């Protein structure tokens, strides 16, 4: 089971919850790294990006009170709730008239139950690389292996390349390319190269661990509008940004991609 299944299951769960509780106007699920896993049909991704970006700093500052468990914002027209349910944040927006006890009972029972079920089927849920519902799933390669294969294995696979359903050798032996969703930050400075982006050191480390016999030096950055570019990668220098699911992009690349600070982009390593 992969993250697409999680996304699919949680999206359906959110849609069903909304049918039971029509007072829920918007609902979406984020990882603790504020990566979007699933959203209901009525909530545009742009709205989620803005909300996540707005909450980002507050969640950081909330370390002063031990980190956030729940947030409730009550307005004249409705309420927004952020609830931590295990490894995820469930965000719901309800109308003014909503019966909060009922809404909380439904969401706090159904979502954890679905998550538990999913976890039962898959021991490694909710990795840092969840695909979004809008994203076309990558074409599955014919053969995938769990770990990078040693030279010995490569030799064993060679004869298969000569068969009818052949894929290039590299595609056959490499793990699926991970895709990370990251929030754009500005990368400024006179000495900052215009063709280099900076991302979490932990992500670079993960990529290097995944493709242990290769060094990942470049990554493809894609926007949800369909634009993409290839850049060199380096780890984020500023400690306050590292580990926050951020990507620092030089202004020139931002212009190329037509993105700006606070927006989400997808990043995947270039494995050659």
């Amino acid at each position, binding site marked *: 089971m992969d993250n697409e299944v999680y996304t699919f299951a949680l999206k359906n769960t959110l849609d069903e919850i909304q049918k039971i509780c029509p007072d829920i106007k918007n609902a979406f699920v984020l990882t603790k790294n504020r990566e979007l896993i699933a959203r209901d049909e009525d909530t545009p991704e742009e709205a989620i990006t803005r909300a996540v970006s707005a909450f980002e700093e507050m969640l950081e*500052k909330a370390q002063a009170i031990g980190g956030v468990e729940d947030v409730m914002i009550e307005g004249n*027209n409705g309420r927004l709730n952020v609830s931590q349910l295990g490894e995820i944040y469930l965000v719901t927006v309800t109308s003014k008239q909503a019966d909060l006890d009922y809404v909380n009972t439904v969401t706090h029972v159904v979502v954890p139950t679905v998550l538990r079920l999913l976890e039962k089927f898959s021991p490694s849920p909710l990795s840092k690389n969840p695909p979004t519902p809008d994203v076309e799933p990558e074409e599955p390669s014919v053969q995938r292996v769990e770990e990078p294969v040693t030279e010995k294995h490569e030799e064993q696979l060679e004869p298969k390349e000569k068969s009818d359903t052949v894929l290039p050798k590299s595609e056959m032996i490499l793990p699926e390319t991970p895709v990370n969703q990251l929030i754009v930050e500005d990368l400024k400075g006179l000495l900052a190269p215009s063709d280099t982006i900076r991302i979490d050191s932990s992500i670079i480390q993960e990529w290097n661990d995944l493709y242990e016999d290769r060094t990942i030096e470049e990554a493809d950055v894609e926007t949800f509008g369909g634009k993409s570019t290839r850049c060199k990668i380096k780890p984020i220098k500023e400690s306050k940004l590292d580990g926050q699911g951020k990507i620092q992009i030089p202004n020139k690349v931002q212009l190329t991609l037509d993105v700006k600070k606070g927006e989400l982009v997808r990043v995947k390593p270039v494995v050659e």
Partner: protein
Amino acid sequence: MVKKKKDELEITTVSGPTLIEATDYESDLRANLEEIKKYDGVVGYILRNTTSASIDLKEPAKIIDYAMLSSTAFDATEEVSDVFELGDIKSIIVNGKNVKMLSLTVEQNKISIFMQDNADTEKILQKLNGS
């Protein structure tokens, strides 16, 4: 006592000078905050308006951290309210693992109360909304 003050406020809104209104109102609010500070589980408060700020926390070492959290919570909420059309914000509650923060805007005053889990949020809200 509080009700009486409120009545006075309403009268001065019509005829009295604005400065006096604000002073009366703020002193009333500060008195309420002082009272709230004595409630079970309350660890302090931050009161900010356009001209001044006062912070009263039992743990002075946390003053800057709490002030930053309070400020970012108001900013974030403004944006989120705009995105999801929540309207004017009545209250913000941030439940942390160690401390809970209740924030609200009363007139021009931005108030954040910091408390333990056992504190009665509803009682505090009523007290502040009655200011």
